[in-house]
C-alpha cells in the first residue's frame, strides 16, 4: 500500500477522537448534572417552588458571575452542547439529511460559538 493511499484513508479521521471525547464528557454532564439543573432552574424556579431569595437577581448574579459559575457553565452548557452537536450530526447522517462534511462544520461550529458566548457572558458579568 502506498503512503499516499494510507494518508487519504486516515485523513478524515484524525479529529474524530476529539469529537468523541467531547461527546463522552458532555454525555456524563448531561446525565449527572442536567437532571438537577433542569429541575431547579427550569421547573421549580418558574413554578415559584423555590424560596423567594434563592435565585433573586442579586443572588443569581453572584452565583453565576463567579469562578465556580464559569466552571458550572463549562460543565452544564459547553460540554452538553458538544454532546448534542455530535448526536445531531450522526442522527442527520442516519436519516440522510444534508451532507456530513457540511453538517459537521455547522454542528461543531455552532456548539463552539454558543460555548464561547456562554463563557463570554459569565466573564462580562464578572467584570460588570
Amino acid at each position: 500500500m502506498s503512503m499516499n493511499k494510507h494518508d487519504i484513508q486516515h485523513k478524515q479521521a484524525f479529529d474524530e477522537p476529539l469529537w468523541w471525547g467531547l461527546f463522552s464528557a458532555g454525555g456524563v454532564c448531561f446525565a449527572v448534572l442536567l437532571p438537577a439543573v433542569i429541575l431547579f432552574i427550569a421547573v421549580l424556579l418558574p413554578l415559584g417552588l423555590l424560596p423567594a431569595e434563592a435565585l433573586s437577581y442579586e443572588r443569581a448574579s453572584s452565583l453565576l458571575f463567579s469562578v465556580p459559575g464559569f466552571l458550572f457553565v463549562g460543565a452544564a452548557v459547553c460540554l452538553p452542547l458538544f454532546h448534542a452537536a455530535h448526536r445531531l450530526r450522526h442522527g442527520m447522517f442516519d436519516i440522510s439529511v444534508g451532507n456530513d462534511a457540511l453538517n459537521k462544520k455547522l454542528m461543531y461550529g455552532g456548539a463552539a460559538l454558543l460555548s464561547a458566548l456562554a463563557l463570554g457572558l459569565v466573564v462580562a458579568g464578572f467584570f460588570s
Partner: protein
Amino acid sequence: MNKSTSQRLPPLKRNWWLKHRFFKLYMLREATVLPLVFFILCFLAGMVALLQGAESWQGWIAFMGSPIVLLLNLLALAASLFHAATFFVLFPRVMPLRIAGHSLPDKAIVAGQWAGVVAVALLFFWLLGRGGV
C-alpha cells in the same frame, strides 16, 4: 466509523430505523438532545437577562413559566433521565473496574452513577432550597 465507506454500501432508506424496536430506541436516544438544546438556549437567554438587570431577570423567569416553555423543559428533564439510564450502563462495558483483583459488578457501577445524580440534586437543594444565605 469512516463515513465515506457508506458509498460502497447500498443506500439505506430514511425510515430504516422504524423497522425494529432496538433502532427506534436508538433514534429516541439520539433525539434526547433536541429538548436539551432547547433548555440550553433558554439558559443562555437567562444569562443575557441576568446581565441586563433585575427587570429582565424577572421577565425571563415569567417566560420560563409559560406553559409551552415549561412543557418543553419537562420533556428535557425526562430526556436527561432517559439519556442517563442508557449512558450509565455503557460505563462498565467501556471501562470495567477492578478493585483488589475482583471486578466490580456492573450493577454497582450503574448504581454509583445514579448516586452521583442524587448527590448533584442534593447539592442544588443545599444551594437553592433554603432561601438566601
